[in-house]
């Protein structure tokens, strides 16, 4: 598979002082499911925003399909259009992403900015609404939607641009189990259709369900390890070290015991 995104020694500081990312190098292949995992504050969102060309690193380089993504290159209208059409970003907070009057306007916004004809944009919007089962919300203002509906509309607003790469920031965060399940199935279907998925999450069950390639970010904002989901999820020492699992004491009737705990894989007991 072709390498679609390449990051070389990326460093980023907030306000020029607080380190957010330190020496990050990554390669993401076309059609891959790639998960960036790490505890809160490790720089997952920052990394996704750098990949989307929304913020620029202090040092290091980002390449998309062999083209370097820089402030200067994004000033070129042709490259900007190519890049924005190819890479879509679903924000963690859907309220940030939904800024148009209605759901339909939201779905049409991206294609219209990319100068796609109104008819084609409309066709895409209706197709996506059907796929996400949100046709009944078409005329609804976005502030009148539930959390799950907002997330579906936010994803739909990106899918109408038909990007090759989808960057998803904590996609299942704060959603009910049914919507989470719907999203996992949707992500798998999109990947099956050839889309590259890059997600930032600390949800280990999601990583397991997607069987993604995983990059683990440490609390020092570095990549601790990269590997297959099965390999990473088995590595208890690594997950303990990066604070994705923790030791936990609790009672079972009269018995108190201590074990490694995560809400996904490691909640196992040595007794019945």
């Amino acid at each position: 598979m072709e390498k679609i995104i390449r990051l070389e020694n990326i460093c980023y500081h907030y306000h020029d002082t607080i380190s957010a990312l330190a020496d990050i190098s990554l390669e993401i292949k076309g059609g891959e499911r790639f998960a960036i995992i790490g505890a809160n504050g490790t720089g997952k969102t920052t990394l996704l925003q750098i990949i989307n060309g929304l913020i620029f690193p202090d040092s290091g380089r980002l390449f998309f399909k062999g083209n370097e993504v820089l402030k200067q290159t994004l000033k070129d209208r042709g490259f900007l259009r190519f890049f924005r059409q190819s890479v879509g970003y679903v924000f963690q907070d859907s309220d940030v992403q939904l800024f148009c009057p209605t759901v339909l306007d939201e779905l049409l916004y991206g294609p219209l900015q990319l100068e796609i004809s109104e008819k084609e944009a409309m066709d895409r919007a209706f197709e996506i609404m059907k796929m996400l089962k949100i046709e009944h919300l078409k005329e609804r203002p976005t502030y009148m939607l539930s959390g799950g509906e907002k997330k579906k509309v936010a994803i739909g607003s990106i899918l109408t641009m038909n990007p090759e790469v989808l960057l998803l920031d904590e996609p299942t965060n704060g959603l009910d189990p049914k919507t989470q399940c719907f999203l996992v199935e949707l992500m798998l279907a999109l990947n099956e259709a050839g889309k590259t998925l890059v997600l930032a999450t600390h949800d280990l069950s999601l990583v397991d369900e997607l069987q993604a390639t995983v990059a683990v970010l440490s609390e020092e904002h570095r990549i601790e390890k990269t590997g297959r989901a099965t390999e990473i999820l088995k590595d208890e020492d690594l997950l303990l070290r990066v604070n994705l699992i923790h030791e936990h004491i609790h009672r079972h009737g009269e018995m108190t015991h201590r074990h490694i705990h995560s809400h996904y894989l490691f909640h196992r007991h040595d007794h019945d």
Partner: protein
Amino acid sequence: MSHPSQNFLGFQGKGVKTPFLERGLHRLAEMIKIAYSQWEFASREGFFQKLDARIKILFLIFFIVIVSLKKDIGSELLIGMFILFLMLLSRLDILCLYRRALLLGLIFGFLMALPSALNLFREGEVIFTFLQLSKPYSLWFYAIPERIGVTKEGIYGTVMLTLRVINSLSITFLVLYTTSFADIVKALKVFRLPDPFLIILTLAYKYLFLFARTVEEVHLAKKSRLLKELPPNLARQWIAGRIAFVFRKTQSKAEEVFKAMLCRGFSDSTKIHKTGKLGQRNWVAGTVFLLVGCLFLWI
């Protein structure tokens, strides 16, 4: 038996007073939230709800001009009845809307114009005397008549202004409560307002709701930890701190929204999709409103 003013733990039931500033903050958040009901009314099945927002906006402007031009009480009453009829057809909560319209009409129509009913400000036929002086007085360019009271012309003017305010408010409520904000924004395209302006308007409206919720939650979070009334200086300090907090939050949210716009192709201009053509129902309704409006102007 315990005294009613004692709670189940036996403490004296003395409530915690909330300072004026905080109450104001809470009321502000509540008031903005009430606007949510607009969407609920706008989604109901009714005559006005089914019309295109462009027709409704043109109706609003046309009828407010008519209300302002009419100079007799009879015509204003007829217009008022027509608006009431449209409200009934649209299945709106008449009592709630007229309570608001009457209250605002009383404040901004009746009370504002009431002094002009006295012959101190405007000459006319006195129909109710308040004060009888021994002789008329003249102060600089100002004349105080011997008999001070309410004039027939003054009453007529006050009633006229009150009716105009009530009618204008009723027309505005009729349109606002049968049209979602999103449709109103799109209808403004009729007046060739640029798309970036409409996007900014939408964003401002949406974030007003989001931040009103934040303000209310901050207030409730504090209330849940409050055991006694805060001294006024501390209350003011707290309010100032929270204003700064909301301001910082709006700034960071604005940056995030801008990033979200950038990643969806926003560069230096923005477009929103065109509204569809008007259907037969809208053309018929528009023509009827035009004819009724002309009739009101003629009578």
